[in-house]
Every structure is written in structure tokens, then in C-alpha cells.
């Protein structure tokens, strides 16, 4: 009898531990895609109603976004404007930058979908099942107002789901012109010149380039990857599994670049614990001369902490080992989506249309340094960084390809393998093999033909 009791206790103990662990897993939830009205038509019908819809009962819309995005001045401005003009409230749910994507996907997988969702789109949007979850705005009036170079990014499978209410920045390497001038350096035009500049800066006791290695995403290796898939035939081969990263010589030179930069001390003697939050201090106090970033970063982040410092900065192409002359990355815009299955679907559509109203976006973006996303934008100004390198930018800008077009591309997870390579944990070839493996696993999960 005692033995039986003991066994019983043991089984209950085991079950308790197992249940506790199982609690960590999310359950798959099938969501119904039924909507009583074609969402696109709904969006179209609501377009003209935009701002003047405060008549109904005030509602509170939930917005799911990344912590970094919610601090953008134009986002804060449009939210304030929306609340003031409509009487509705916004409940901003900001998720951490580094784990944000995971949290957002988990929320979607468990059916906890907000009224409004923000995301950079591209192939990564597939995980959120846009056809099933988001309002199709393809027929909305504001689509014609979106700049032609931005519209492809706002599209998914030839439909427009998200409003590109964002700054359109040019990415490359921002650099301190004062440091460059004091050391007799000019903006590098080749990879070799770039490395020479790094050596000179290092010899002067300054960290040539600040890289927020600990946060992984700021490795921004997509700046190099963009160049490799500009040819749609090459991209097609990669996306149909007849080509691998390992087969592309430029991919290897890019990973080797990160390793060489680390080994040569061009990211500083100690760089493994550098964080994105530490970047303004490193650049602002002149401890580092360069950083992979975008033109508006100098205004939005550096000037905030070191007023006026953006005047000392310019932007050069991103030399990340992929192409000898370096390249700038074209705009990457964050999109705003409306949940078509939520209880506040009408208010969510109105919210998006409100943001797309020229009067409202012009007020929100007033005096902000960016290139225009909408054709009707007339209150913005281009950044000093952009102006300082406008000619080179025009010559060397390539479209953002890696993020929106490479199936299975992951900015954070891919960067973790580069991180390991830089720290000597793995070799260049092992790093590329791991990145390939990850990409193929995701493509397989997406049921992409050929994988």
C-alpha cells in the first residue's frame, strides 16, 4: 500500500513538473479568415472619411510595435494628432528591440493580434499571414500617393497591406568628418582605401568603427547582401534552392570582412559587449569615428544627446566587403497594418487612413530630415548627411533586397553566426554553412518550392 502511495506521489510530482514546462509552449490557434466585407473595398470606402470620424463612441486601439519605433518623433506626433482629433485612445504595446520579432510572432501564433501592427514587411511578413490577418488596402486612395521607390516594400504578393508611414533614410557608414580631416583622410572610394583609413584612425588612438556587437542586429550585414541579389536571376536561384550563400564568392568576402575588421582591432580592442545604446556616446564623444547606420540617425539619435553634432558627420557607402566600391542601401520603411479580424476593424482602418491624410502626415513630419515617402510630403527637409554626399548617394545606392526578397533571411539570427566568427568561435566557412542552414530551414518551414 505504501509502495503504491509512493508511486502515486512520484507520478503526481512528475506530472506537475511536466505540466509546468508544457505551460511554456504556445498552442497553435487557427484563426478564421472570414470577413463579411471585402477588406479592400472597406478601406476604399473609409478613405475619404479619415479624420472626421470622431462621431462614434471613442475606442481604444492597441498598437504592437518595437520599442525603438515608438520613440520616433513623427510617430509620437501622429499619435498625438490622432488622439486629439478623433477622441480615440491608443494603447501602445512596445516590445524589446532584440526579441521583439519573437514576441510579436508568438502573439500572432496565439491569436493575440492587436488592432494595429507595425513591421518592416518583406518576406518576413509571411510569418504573420497577411492575407489572413491584415486589411488589404490595395484599392485605397492613398496607395497612389506613395512614392514609386517605396511602394514595392509596402506590397506583399502584389497587394498593399501596410501604410509606409516612416522616414525614408539612406544607409551606409556615417563618419565624423572632423576626425577624418584632422588625420588628413578623405571619404574612401574603395575597400583598400577604407582599410587604410581604419588603420590611420586606429593609430591615432580612436576606434575606427563602432559596432554594437552584443545587440547582434546592428551588424547590418544586409548592406552587403543587397548587392548580391540585384540580379533577379541570382535571387531566383537562391529562393529556389539551386544556389547557396556558400556558392557566392562575395558572401565569403563579406564574412571575411567582419572577421578581418575584428581581428585588426578596427571595431576597437574590446567590442563583444558594445551595445546600440552605447553608440551615441562613442560617436558623440569622438571615441569612435564611424558606424554602420543611416543618414537620419545623426539627427534622431546623435543630435538628441549631443545637440548640433550631426553637422560634423557625413555618410559614406557601406564597405562591408561585398563590393569594392561600397554601396548605400535604399530606404527601408516600417509599415503599419490593420487587423481585419479585430473588434475595432473599422476604427483601425480609419486610423491608417488618418495617417495617410496629407494634412496629417505633413504635420507629423514637419521639419523632419528624411527623403519623402509620400508624393504629397512638403514639410520635410533632407538631412545634412544626405546633402553632404548627395552625388555619391545617387551613384551608389542599391535597393534594399536582402530583407524584403531573400526567403529565410534573418537579420538577428544570421548576425549571431557572424558574431561567433568575429570572436573566433567558428570559421568563415562554418559561419556561412550555418547561415545557409538557417535560411533553408526557414524556407522549408514556409513550404517554399525546392526546399
Amino acid at each position: 500500500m505504501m509502495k503504491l502511495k509512493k508511486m502515486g506521489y512520484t507520478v503526481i510530482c512528475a506530472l506537475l513538473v511536466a505540466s509546468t514546462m508544457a505551460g511554456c509552449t504556445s498552442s497553435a490557434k487557427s484563426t478564421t479568415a472570414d470577413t463579411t466585407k471585402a477588406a479592400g473595398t472597406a478601406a476604399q470606402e473609409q478613405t475619404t472619411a479619415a479624420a472626421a470620424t470622431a462621431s462614434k463612441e471613442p475606442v481604444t486601439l492597441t498598437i504592437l510595435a518595437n520599442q525603438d519605433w515608438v520613440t520616433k518623433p513623427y510617430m509620437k506626433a501622429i499619435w498625438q494628432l490622432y488622439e486629439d482629433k478623433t477622441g480615440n485612445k491608443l494603447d501602445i504595446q512596445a516590445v524589446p528591440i532584440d526579441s521583439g520579432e519573437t514576441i510579436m510572432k508568438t502573439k500572432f501564433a496565439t491569436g493575440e493580434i492587436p488592432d494595429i501592427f507595425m513591421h518592416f514587411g518583406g518576406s518576413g511578413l509571411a510569418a504573420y499571414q497577411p492575407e489572413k490577418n491584415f486589411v488589404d488596402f490595395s484599392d485605397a486612395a492613398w496607395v497612389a500617393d506613395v512614392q514609386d521607390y517605396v511602394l514595392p516594400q509596402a506590397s506583399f504578393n502584389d497587394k498593399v497591406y501596410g501604410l509606409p508611414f516612416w522616414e525614408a533614410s539612406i544607409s551606409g557608414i556615417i563618419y565624423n568628418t572632423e576626425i577624418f580631416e584632422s588625420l588628413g583622410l578623405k571619404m574612401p572610394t574603395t575597400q583598400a582605401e577604407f582599410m587604410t583609413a581604419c588603420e590611420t584612425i586606429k593609430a591615432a588612438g580612436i576606434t575606427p568603427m563602432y559596432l554594437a556587437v552584443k545587440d547582434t542586429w546592428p551588424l547590418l550585414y544586409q548592406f552587403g547582401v543587397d548587392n548580391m541579389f540585384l540580379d533577379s536571376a541570382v535571387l531566383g536561384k537562391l529562393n529556389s534552392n539551386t544556389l547557396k550563400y556558400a556558392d557566392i564568392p562575395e558572401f565569403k568576402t563579406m564574412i571575411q570582412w567582419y572577421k578581418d575588421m575584428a581581428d585588426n582591432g578596427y571595431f576597437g580592442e574590446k567590442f563583444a559587449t558594445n551595445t546600440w545604446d552605447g553608440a551615441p556616446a562613442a560617436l558623440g564623444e569622438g571615441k569612435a569615428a564611424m558606424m554602420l547606420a543611416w543618414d537620419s540617425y545623426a539627427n534622431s539619435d546623435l543630435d538628441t544627446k549631443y545637440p548640433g553634432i550631426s553637422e560634423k558627420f557625413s555618410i559614406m557607402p557601406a564597405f562591408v566587403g561585398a563590393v569594392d566600391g561600397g554601396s548605400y542601401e535604399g530606404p527601408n520603411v516600417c509599415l503599419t497594418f490593420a487587423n481585419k479580424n479585430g473588434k475595432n476593424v473599422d476604427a483601425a482602418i480609419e486610423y491608417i487612413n488618418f495617417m495617410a491624410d496629407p494634412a496629417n502626415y505633413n504635420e507629423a513630419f514637419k521639419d523632419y530630415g528624411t527623403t519623402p515617402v509620400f508624393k504629397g510630403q512638403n514639410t520635410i527637409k533632407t538631412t545634412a548627411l544626405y546633402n553632404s554626399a548627395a552625388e555619391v548617394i545617387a551613384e551608389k545606392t542599391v535597393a534594399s533586397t536582402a530583407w524584403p526578397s531573400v526567403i529565410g533571411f534573418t537579420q538577428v539570427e544570421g548576425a549571431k553566426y557572424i558574431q561567433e566568427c568575429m570572436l573566433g568561435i567558428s570559421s568563415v566557412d562554418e559561419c556561412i554553412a550555418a547561415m545557409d542552414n538557417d535560411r533553408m530551414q526557414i524556407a522549408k518551414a514556409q513550404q517554399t518550392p525546392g526546399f
Partner: protein
Amino acid sequence: MHLKKIYPTYFMIIPLIVFTIFFLIPSTIGYLYAFTDWNPYVEKIKFVGFENFVEIFQNRSLTTAFINTVVIAVVKTVFVTVIGVGIALLLNRGFRTNKMLRTVYFMPAIFSALIVGLIFSGLFDTQNGVINQVLGAIGVKDAQIEWLGSRWPALTVVNAAEIWRSAGYGVVITLAALQAIPADYLEAAKMDGANGWQRFRHIILPMIMPAVNVNILFSLIYGLKMFDLILILTGGGPGHETESFGTLILSEMSRDRYSQSVSINLIFSIMLVIVAILFQKYSKKWEAKE
């Protein structure tokens, strides 16, 4: 000990029903996903047998996570148990400041993981951390150690943070057991000529062993489940070097590999169950021997 049965067996029916509905069934259903191709892109989930398990056993990070998890759990258990007994013995001596000291030692246990993580990342920060500054001040060459920048130093910091956070529990549980030891036992032993060590070895330790066992079991299980502090301090990095089972599960989720994530969870749960059962079995023997 005489345990008097004060309620009939059928009183267990309702708790068992609740347990079955809210724990047992959801858990079982949850674990079934380990044998499917569930991910955010799949509309109709289908069974794939042990395919996910085969795949995750080929994952290099699984070995790293396994080693890290075991190291964290064992180191934490040893330190929390020893520190718990040591401090409890001191506090049991009846200092004037006893109550205050108890509060001080237990204080870290009430802090959230986020606060503990931030305190330790501040302490061990490369440029401005107190630890590196102290090392520099006492003349250590190259005192800019990147504590969180490589595997073993980072795991040391994680362990230190976890031990600091958990030691209070060990102290409180052991102290309660110490205070339950009848004073006459110790006085009689003293009169018989037993020295301090002999009293500890033959009277105190056997009598506090059940409490120590509870400490060991809790430390071991919570050590194996280590997740929050790693996420805050290292995020599993650099690369995947400081992943534990907990962070690896999250990492798989973030790569849209939901069913693989559940598979790791299932393996981990089985591991925990085995540890719990083995510990229960052997700890009883230790107590009996004592």
C-alpha cells in the same frame, strides 16, 4: 510520525478534475505539437513523427545548451546549499541584528529577474562596471574584462547573479530547520564532550537534512530552468554560446520553428522529471542514513 487522515479520499476528486482540465490535458496537447510541422506559415498542421527530434539532435546549439544548463544548475545548487547552511548557522547564533540580517539576505529574492540582471550587467560592464574599476584600482593589468563577451566568464556572471538572487531562500529554509532543533540535544552533546564540528556533523546536519534536501531540489530544478537572467544578461550570446534549454526554446521559436521548439521543451521536461524522480528516491536514502 503519526499522520492522521482527516479527510476522505473523494475530497481529491475536484482538485484532480481541475488538474486534469487545466494542466494535464493542455500539457499533453501542447506536447503533441512536437510531432507535427507546426509553424506560423502552416495552415493545416500534419504529423511528422520524430522528424523534429532527429533535426534538433543535429543542432550544435543543443549540446551547448545542455552543457550550460547542467553547469548552471549544479554550480547554483552547490553554492546556494552551502551558503544557505553557512549563513543560517551564523544567523542562528542570536545576533542583535538577526532580524535585519535575515531581511538583507532575503532581499534579493524579492527582486525581479530584470532588476537583478540590470544590477549585474552594471557591475560587470566592460567600461564602467564596478568590478573592472576595482580590478583596475588594485593594479590588475588589462582590467577591461569583457565579462559578458565570452562563454565561461558570462556563465560565471549569470551564476553569480542567480546565486545572489536565490541564496536568501536557502537561508530562510535552513534557518527554519535549525530553529526546530531542540536545544537539549545540543546541550547534552556538549556535556558529553562533543566539539563544534561533531555537534554539527552528528546532530545539526542530520536534523536539517530534510530542509537541505528541499533546497537542493528547488535549486536544481530552478537552475535547470534558468532562462530570465541569461536573456537579460547575454541573450544567449555571443552567438549561441550561453544558451540554456530555456533560451534555446525561445531561439527556435524566433526562427519560426515552433514544433522544434516544443520538441526541445519535451526533451527538457523529460530530463526534469527524471532529475526530480531520482532526487526524490536518493534524498530519502540520505535522510534515512543520517
